[in-house]
């Protein structure tokens, strides 16, 4: 009997492709489409001058008309190819996965084949049948593998051909006009049915889901601003729309900067756009500590000229549409959109800590600069609750929007720092928010309406306070019976006090200052700190792992006392390095 060893498996061809760079190209195309669409809107709109009459006016209006029509056609064409490129990026990602699987499969097959080769000379005759069966079985698997390798090469070639064809069909202006001139923009009809903001995020979600993929894509290209900050739209869609808007802003403003034509407000606009770009790049640059994959970034809010130029921006570390646990960090005094990289660093630290402490759970952390915090000329607002009250409404809207885009029931934990804890506390007391826990860090008070932790609406067991004993700002909340609240001043009770009824957790820094100081107010999101460890455990819902701290108290005689001052701070591992 003769047994034939199977032939070695085919070589897997080297695959060098980067789906992420194709996605960037898609965004560039969409951004270009949006800019040209603006021109198409400008011509029949602002560019019309009805008051101007006479021959010159007739000539002018006749001359610009084709420009508008051509712009609309080019916008549609760019959108078409960008959509095809987006499909190409998805396909490439699939090819990369298939390729990597094939490389692993081949290694296994080669190892098994080598093993059979080594055994072959030593097989006794009575075992030849079994050995032959093993060879046949391996041969079949190698044949199936070879078929899969061929399929990968064929499919990749076909995909590339189709991609090239999509571009070739729209290479010249003639081709574009022939195909798209006079064609109605599918975005127009879809946007006509868009519910008003007052309808709420659930209605927006319903509208969005009712659109065809082509209509959804058309809106991204034609009018990203109409959905980028609209609660009820999925985060991944908002991210794409806002990224298109960001790219458009950068292209326009940097050109003006180059020509030295920026106005004061445009300079502020460009500062906020660049800060946003930097924050997103920071997230993209980080890898998930558990998987080693890049952390997903999402631009959830992008309104760089809001609040008289302070800007309104929210950057997410993680996938807001899918993560198990969601945290929303609200920063405090002296923050605006230009500070979004720093706020995002805090979000990244929290993201990493939650992953290290709960590797089976996924997280998304929002760096939410979504309100007008006291800073610059309106800094005195830090002494009053008005700005927190305005911000609270916006925070509640954001939380409602997140709930609307999720069909499941993710854990949601708003985390307010400094004056942001006043905003967060006020959102809790003044608005009905569907969240699981609240975390207040370095809080000067959670707002006047929060007399007790139970006023925040999630049960006092789910209100958590991090207040380090050297943080001078966390000392500003009212305690005892003589305080600013008696004369309608200040930002509310000290939530770390025993009477407030919240859980106080350990938040001392190992490098804490000697006396009360401002530096310790900024240490709550530092890696390997007690504070970050505990906040991450709360976001993960690991309540038993939270290390509790004794409350501050204010005896009838003597001043307010903080037992944490006498405790030696510890370190905790939030990076997995020990």
């Amino acid at each position: 009997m003769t047994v034939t060893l199977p032939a070695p498996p085919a070589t897997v061809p080297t695959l060098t492709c980067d789906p992420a760079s194709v996605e960037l190209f898609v965004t560039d195309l969409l951004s270009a489409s949006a800019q040209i669409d603006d021109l198409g809107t400008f011509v029949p709109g602002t560019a019309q001058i009805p008051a101007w009459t006479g021959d010159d006016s007739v000539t002018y209006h006749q001359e610009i008309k084709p420009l508008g029509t051509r712009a609309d056609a080019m916008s549609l064409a760019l959108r078409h190819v960008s959509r095809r490129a987006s499909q190409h990026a998805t396909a490439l990602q699939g090819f990369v996965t298939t390729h990597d699987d094939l490389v692993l499969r081949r290694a296994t097959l080669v190892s098994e084949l080598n093993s059979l080769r080594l055994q072959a000379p030593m097989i006794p005759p009575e075992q030849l049948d079994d050995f032959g069966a093993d060879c046949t079985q391996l041969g079949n698997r190698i044949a199936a593998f070879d078929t899969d390798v061929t399929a990968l090469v064929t499919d990749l070639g076909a995909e590339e051909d189709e991609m090239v064809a999509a571009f070739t069909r729209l290479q010249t202006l003639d081709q574009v006009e022939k195909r798209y001139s006079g064609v109605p923009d599918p975005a127009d009809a879809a946007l006509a049915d868009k519910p008003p903001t007052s309808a709420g995020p659930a209605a927006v979600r319903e509208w969005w889901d009712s659109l065809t993929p082509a209509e959804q894509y058309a809106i991204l290209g034609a009018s990203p601003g109409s959905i980028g900050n609209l609660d009820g739209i999925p985060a991944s869609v908002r991210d794409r729309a806002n990224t298109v808007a960001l790219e458009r802003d950068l292209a326009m403003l940097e050109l003006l900067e180059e020509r030295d034509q920026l106005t004061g407000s445009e300079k502020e606009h460009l500062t906020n756009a660049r800060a946003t770009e930097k924050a997103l790049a920071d997230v993209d640059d980080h890898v998930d500590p558990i998987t080693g994959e890049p952390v997903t970034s999402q631009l959830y809010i992008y309104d760089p000229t809001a609040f008289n130029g302070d800007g309104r921006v929210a950057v997410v570390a993680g996938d807001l549409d899918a993560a198990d646990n969601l945290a929303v960090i609200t920063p405090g005094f002296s923050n605006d959109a230009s500070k979004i990289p720093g706020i995002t660093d805090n979000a990244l630290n929290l993201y990493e800590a939650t992953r290290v402490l709960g590797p089976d759970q996924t997280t998304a952390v929002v760096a939410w600069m979504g309100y007008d915090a006291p800073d610059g000329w309106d800094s005195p607002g830090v002494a009053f609750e008005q700005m927190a009250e305005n911000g609270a409404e916006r925070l509640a809207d954001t939380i409602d929007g997140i709930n609307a885009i999720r069909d499941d029931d993710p854990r949601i934990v708003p985390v307010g720092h400094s004056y942001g804890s006043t905003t967060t506390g006020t959102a809790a007391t003044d608005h009905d928010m569907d969240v699981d826990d609240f975390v207040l860090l370095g809080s000067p008070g959670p707002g006047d309406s929060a007399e007790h932790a139970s006023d925040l609406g999630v049960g006092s067991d789910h209100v958590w306070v991090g207040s380090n004993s050297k943080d001078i700002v966390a000392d500003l909340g009212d305690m005892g019976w003589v305080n600013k609240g008696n004369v309608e001043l200040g930002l509310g009770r000290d939530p770390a006090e025993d009477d407030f009824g919240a859980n106080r957790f350990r938040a001392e820094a190992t490098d804490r200052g000697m006396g009360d100081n401002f530096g310790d107010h900024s240490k709550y999101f530092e890696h390997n700190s007690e504070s970050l460890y505990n906040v991450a455990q709360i976001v993960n819902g690991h309540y038993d792992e939270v290390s509790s701290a004794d409350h501050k108290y204010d005896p009838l005689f003597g001043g307010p006392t903080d037992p944490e001052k006498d405790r030696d701070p510890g370190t905790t591992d939030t990076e997995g390095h020990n």
Partner: protein
Amino acid sequence: MGRLHRVTLGIGLVVVALAACDGGSTAGDPDAGARLEDQRTEVRATALDVAPALAAAVGGRVTFMSGEWQGCNIVEQYLHRNFRYSVSGRIDAAGLDEASVEVLSAALEQQGFRTSAVEPVGSGRIGFGGERDGLEGGGTLYVENPFVLFGFSGPCIDVPKGERETWERRRDPDKDLVPKRTTSGG
């Protein structure tokens, strides 16, 4: 702090509370930039040398490994006064269990690290670590879904005040030592 004092402070300081920031008193090392660059080279070389040895000790492989600069001590909002270079990664191996952490610690010691005691660092996690020539190395074994996270870091170096912002935003364009996904043919 006395009660009346608190009230006064609360009314007066709430406006100016965060405006004043501790910028840190140290001038920083004028050679900090060069030292941090050198540290990057040293930490990466150490990680490339030691991490595979740790993986080999437990019969596994380094799944990914990348490095970055990190802030150490924060002195004001979003600004650290000192920085260091740090490499992080993961080891996967079949058959990892609680005893493996002792093997990892021994392997670290064999690489010249002065190791500290192996100890639990939280629910389901056991830590190991050590120090060699001023560099820290160590990791965490996850008991329930066995894998190991590890890291190597240099000492914190104070940078001049005017350079803090630059280092805060500094990224390593070539951060991957072992990228997560390889697309080489086979």
